[in-house]
Structures are given as C-alpha cells and as structure tokens.
C-alpha cells in the first residue's frame, strides 16, 4: 500500500508538471501575440458607467455625454493630435465591488493601459484610490470623490477637478447666507441636510458642521438609505422640525423621490437646494409641476447647447453614432459627461507636449493633469464657451479653483441664476490638510515632494 501511495504521488506530480508546462506555454503564447494586437497605437479610455439599477436615470446621460465626446474627437479631429481614441464601457451598477472589478478589467487594456478613470461614484472612488498608488493610473472625479484628495502631495493620483463636496456645501451656505442678507443672519436658523447614506452623502457633513460652529445655525442630519425610494420618515421629521432650508444630497431616484415628498409634505421647493448631482432633468421631471422653484448648484456646464453641441450633432448624431437620443444632447448631465471627457482629453493633449504624440501611459497622463491650464481662450477654441469654467492645476493642488452657480427649474427648463460662488479656501484648506494628513498616517504613505519633482 505504501508503494501504491508513492506511485500515486509520482503520477500526480507528473500530471501537475505537465499541466504546468502546458499552461506556461499558453501564457507564453499569449504574451507573444499581445504586442502584435497592441500595435495599433491608440489611446485607451476606460468608461465605468451605470445604465442599469436605481441610479441609471442619472448614469445614462453622463455616460452618453462622455462616450459621445470621445467619438467626436475621433470623427472631427481624427483623434488627439492624430492618436486615435478607443474606449470600452463596463457596467458598475453604482456598486462598489462591481466597480472595482471593472477597474481591474479595464486598467490594462489598450496599447498603453488605461488613460484615467472616472469612477462616477464616491464609493468606487474610495476603493480605487487605494489601488491607484500601485497601478499609477489617475482617478479623475469631476465634482465628486474625496474632498481631501485635492492635496496632490498625499493623493498623488486623484484629481477632483471642478470642485469637491466641501466646496459645494460651502457655496450652498454662502448662497443661503446671501439670501438672508449676510452669513451672520444664519444664527438660530435651521438647515436640514437630506443625504444619501453613503460616502457620497456623508462627505459634506464635516464642512457643514464647521460652518455651523462659525455662524451658529442648527444642522439637522437626515440620512436616506440606498436607493432612496423610501423617504416618508425623513420628510415626517422635516414636517415636525420645520427647517428654514433643506439641502438635498441625493443621486438617482432619491432626488425625484425627495422632490415628490417635499410636494406631499408641503415643504416649499424654493427653500430646497440640491448639490450639483441633484439638479438635472431626470431629477425634476418625474415630480411634474411640483418641482417648479427647486434650485441646485451647477458647475462646469449648465443645460443648453453651444458650438461643441453643433459639432456633436453634425459629426456624431447625424451619422447615427450617438449613444443617446438627439434631443437629450445638451441636458445637464450630458454636458457634464462631455466636460469630464474634455478635461481628460485635454490632459492627454497637454501630456503629449512633454512625452510626444503617441499613446500615453497613465503615469504620463498624470503629468498632463497636473499641468492643466484650460483658460477662457482654450475653452472658446474647444467650443465650450458657457459650458466650462477655467481649470488650472498643479502638483500640490489637484482640483483647481472651484466655482459654481445656482440654477432653478421653472417647470420646463433650468435657468441659471445670477451670481457666481467660490468656495472659501480659508475654511476648506486647513480641513483638507488635516484630513489628508490623517489618511497618509493611516496608510503609512510617504508624501510626494512636489518641489523636487518639478526640478
């Protein structure tokens, strides 16, 4: 019997060796054919999108805008300085685990790997931030993500372009302060934050509490659990507490549900302000006339059409290549998706100045992102006048200056209100610094030395 066991072990190890050999050969073959397939020399854009689930109404227009702009770059300009753009979509369903899987699936594709990721979810941003350090691929979060990732010395790969949630919360407080006739008039007022109970919704709380300490208003925190279709209890509390203002920090069906509940409870829509993710067409149209008077922040691009949209219709939609419907071109989230694609493309263009007109690696694109300077002239040249605010970044500051306006829904369309808001950096900067320090300590990260890298 002992003998038998010995033979079996021998046989098994032979089998294993054979299997090992054959799989190794297979892997070799794979590696050998890979460069041939990669010879095309294209810039690969991964697209994490969600076209299914509770967040699809908002995910679809953003994804359409994003991929349509990439198509436009190929159709109109023949690529970025001649380097063709290719992209692949992956459905995340706004779920963090699925998003991470998509990230892993797409990060190595194309001739030089992924250009940069737009996770389009704060939860996914948190998860992939952790991986970006090893993968050396930029994570661009236009108007979302971690507020402290502005600090490029700690968050070397995150780019919260356009503003963070701390900026947004700050602007909303400034706006209601202005409405009351001065920030000091906020004393004794009550502001309710109706938020999505996830990193996305919790992100602004720190700033609103800081401001509450400064101005003496009372902050009511009302979480809404995912996906946000059940808000009866939340709005019952609003009816009892009668806050002076309601800030809405929702996404997907949560937004339209909140507006419908506001109608049902009789809370005036004029006193409701949404963050920039709670102010698009799919949020207000389900509530019908009830949504009239509701306002929200808007950054980068309000609704409407300009030169770039004309090109879009001409080069993409008239050829039947559009991702969505022609009438949806120019919606708030479509424009924002387009703007997100545009900053990424411009970062590649910038990086090409340094690294040459060829497909670039994520690490090279980061240089472009850190040296972005999209001023008014550049915006005009791109056809984005009125749909983009200037952005300039550096190694230390990965966000640029945030600015946003308020727009209100009149029952038919969004109207931009006068007045531009800038976040108060004297409050936010120290918060970013301490939060980033904490992250660096937790993760045992060594900070980047920007002065040294520049030299």
């Amino acid at each position, binding site marked *: 019997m002992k003998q038998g066991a010995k033979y079996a072990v021998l046989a098994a190890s032979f089998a294993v060796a054979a299997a090992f050999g054959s799989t190794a050969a297979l892997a070799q073959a794979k590696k050998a054919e890979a460069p041939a397939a990669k010879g095309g020399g294209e810039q690969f854009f991964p697209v994490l999108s969600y076209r299914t689930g509770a967040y699809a109404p908002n995910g679809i227009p953003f994804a359409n805008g994003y991929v349509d702009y990439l198509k436009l770059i190929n159709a109109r300009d023949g690529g970025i300085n001649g380097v063709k753009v290719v992209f692949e979509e*992956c*459905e995340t369903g706004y779920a963090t685990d699925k998003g991470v899987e998509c990230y*892993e699936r797409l990060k190595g594709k194309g001739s030089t790997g992924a250009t940069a990721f737009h996770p389009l979810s704060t*939860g996914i941003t948190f*998860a992939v*931030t952790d991986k970006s350090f090893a993968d050396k691929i930029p994570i661009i979060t236009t108007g979302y993500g971690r507020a402290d990732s502005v600090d490029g010395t700690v968050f070397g790969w995150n780019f919260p372009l356009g503003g963070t949630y701390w900026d947004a919360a700050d602007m909303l407080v400034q706006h209601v302060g202005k409405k009351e006739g001065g920030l000091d008039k906020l004393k004794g007022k009550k502001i309710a934050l109706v938020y999505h109970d996830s*990193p996305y919704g919790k992100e602004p709380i720190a700033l609103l509490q800081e401001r509450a300490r400064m101005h003496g208003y009372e902050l009511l925190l009302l979480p809404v659990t995912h996906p946000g279709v059940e808000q009866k209890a939340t709005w019952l509390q609003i009816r009892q507490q009668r806050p002076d203002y309601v800030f809405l920090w929702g996404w997907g069906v949560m937004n339209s549900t909140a507006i419908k509940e506001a109608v049902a409870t009789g809370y005036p829509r004029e006193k409701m302000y949404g963050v920039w993710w709670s102010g698009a067409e799919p949020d207000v149209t389900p509530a019908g006339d009830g949504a009239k008077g509701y306002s929200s922040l808007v950054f980068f691009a309000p609704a409407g059409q300009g030169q770039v949209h004309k090109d879009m219709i001409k080069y993409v939609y008239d050829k039947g290549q559009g991702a969505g419907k022609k009438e949806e071109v120019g919606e708030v989230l479509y424009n924002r998706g387009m703007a997100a694609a545009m900053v990424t493309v411009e970062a590649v263009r910038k990086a090409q100045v340094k690294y040459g007109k060829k497909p670039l690696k994520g690490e090279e694109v980061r240089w472009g992102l850190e040296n972005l300077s999209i001023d008014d002239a550049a915006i005009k040249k791109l056809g984005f006048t009125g749909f983009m605010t200037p952005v300039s970044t550096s190694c230390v500051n990965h966000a640029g200056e945030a600015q946003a306006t308020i727009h209100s829904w009149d029952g038919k369309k969004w109207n931009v209100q006068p007045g531009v808001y800038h976040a108060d950096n004297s409050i936010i900067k120290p918060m970013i610094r301490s939060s980033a320090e904490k992250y660096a300590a*937790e993760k045992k990260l060594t900070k980047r030395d920007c002065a040294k890298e520049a030299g």
Partner: protein
Amino acid sequence: MFYRENGQFKSTYASDQQMLPILQDRAFMLGLLVLAIGAAPFVVSDYVFLSLLIPFLILALAAIGLNLLVGYCGQISIGHAAFMAVGAYAAYNLALRIPQLNFLVVLVLSGLIAAAVGILFGVPSLRIKGLYLAVATLAAQFFMDWLFARVKWFTNYSSSGSVSTAPIEMFGWTVDTPAEKYLFLLGVLIVLTLVAKNLVRSHIGREWMAMRDMDVAAEVIGIRPVYAKLTAFAVSAFYCGIAGALWGFVHLGAWEPLAFNLTVSLNLLFMIIIGGMGSLLGSFFGAAFIVALPIILDQVPLWLGVPISTAMASHLASMIFGALIVFFLVVEPHGLARLWAIGKEKLRLWPFPH
C-alpha cells in the same frame, strides 16, 4: 476503472480515520494543491487574481463559516454579513490603534471578537427555531449596519464613514502584489478548512449534527443544546469575522458599511444552498458559482464579439444567472456537492454500470 478503492485495505486506525480515505482522492487533492500553490502564481493574470480568485477564496471561507452553522447545526441565519462587518471593523481598529500588532494576530483577534458577538446574537436560538430564528438573525444585520454607520469611533471619525486600511505586514513581509495576496489567503483558507473539517468530524461536530437532525432526541442522549448551539454560533462567526477582515484588508482596501449589507448575507446563504448544505466542499462550489458566474456571463458577449450595450449585457447576465440557479436546484436540490458525489459514484462503476 480509475476511480475505485479495491485493494486499498485499512490496517491501522490512523489510515481508517484520515480525511481522504481513498488514494485517488488524496492524489487529486495533492495535485490540486500543487497546482494552486506552485503553478497558479506564475501563470494566472492579475485580473483573474483580483477579480476572481481573491474574492472566491475569501467568500469560500465565509461560506464555510455559515455552513457550519446552517448546514451542520441546522440554525438558519440571514445576518452573517454582520459578523463579517464585525471582523472587518475590529481588524481595522486593532490595526489602527495598535500598529505594532502582527497582521495574523489582528486576524485572529478580530475573529475572536466576531465570535463573541456571534454568541450574543446566538442566544435567541435557544428559544426560537427554524424560520423564526432566521428573522431574529436579521436583527444582527440591521444592528451592525446601524452601528458602523452611526458610531463614529469605529470609523475613526472619518468624514465620509468610509475607512481605508494600512498595508498588510507580518514578519517583515508586505502582502501587496496580487499573487502574494492570493498565496496568503490560500494559506489562511487551507488552515481554516482543515480545522473546520476536523471540527465537524469531532464530538463537537457530531453534537451539532445531532441538534440539526432532531434536537429533542439529541437532548435525551445527553447533548446540551446551549453548548452545542452557542459553539456553532461562535465558530461560525469566528470564520465569518476572519473572512470579513480579509475582505476589507486584502480585497477592498477601503470600504463603507454598505460593503457588508444584507445582499452579502443573502449571497452567503445562496452559496451554501447552491453548493450544498452540510458539506465543506459545497461551500467552495457555492462560492465559485456566485463569484465567478456573474463575471463570466457579463463578459461572454464581449468574447463572442456580439456588439450589445453594457446595459443589455448586464440585464442578460442577471437573467441567465437566475435561470441557472433555478436549473441547478431543480436538477439537484442538495447542491453542487451532491452532484459531485453522484459523479464520483458513477465513476466508480464506469465503464460497467449495473
């Protein structure tokens, strides 16, 4: 022909009591281990490691934990993600507040903390049975969801409620590449599977099974229900706690309370139902089924070169996934492990079936 035990005589107690009594099984297991440890790290791509193998290994561990309770002891729980959450947050806080600790120590301690919580939530099982108990275990799920979302101390006062972990270090080894993570997890899984296998063959496992099969009869022959049920809860929560800590530290790296919500609990339950209740092998099959199938289905249209939208692909994947679950349960209600056993039975007679 190949798979028959004729001529394999057991002449000692040790050979009679070994875990794999049949020579061919031992050879197969050895080959599998050599392949998994020796060959896989060199040939498998990072994507397969990070998206398939690592989640599979961790969820297999969690499924073993749940199977010990549901499959072996007969106490239904639909709140086991809560114990994973306890393990994950315990590990996070231990690693954060006592940074000198070796990760293995952190892992075991977080498993023990989860076990303590498991005993606490196992107390109702002494009074209520079956589906009623299942509903009671939901309390664990909702309570933990609430606790980690609301009590700021657990998340180290993070402004967004999301936590991110420090790198995994032990004995000067930093586990960071996908292959290293895989090997580390494989090691943990092998050790804990061996422990589980021996637990269920020992007097404790036999007590659990007696409780499962008929609690009154078990009590009559002298098994204490309090001890049997609570040990099952403790061991089960210990496994899930370790799985949770690994899920947070090795797989996610950064997570929010939603990472351990009810969906995860239900998925664990589906794993053991599809894989096979009361079978450790079934836990592996079930975990593989639930982890791999959606990912594979999602990519099939891409491999075939069928140009359909991602939304369509994801809808199709859910539909086919659902249909396959129903199909397998109709074909074999006792799970994939039973199918495997039938296959071995058939192989034994092959090529001359009766």
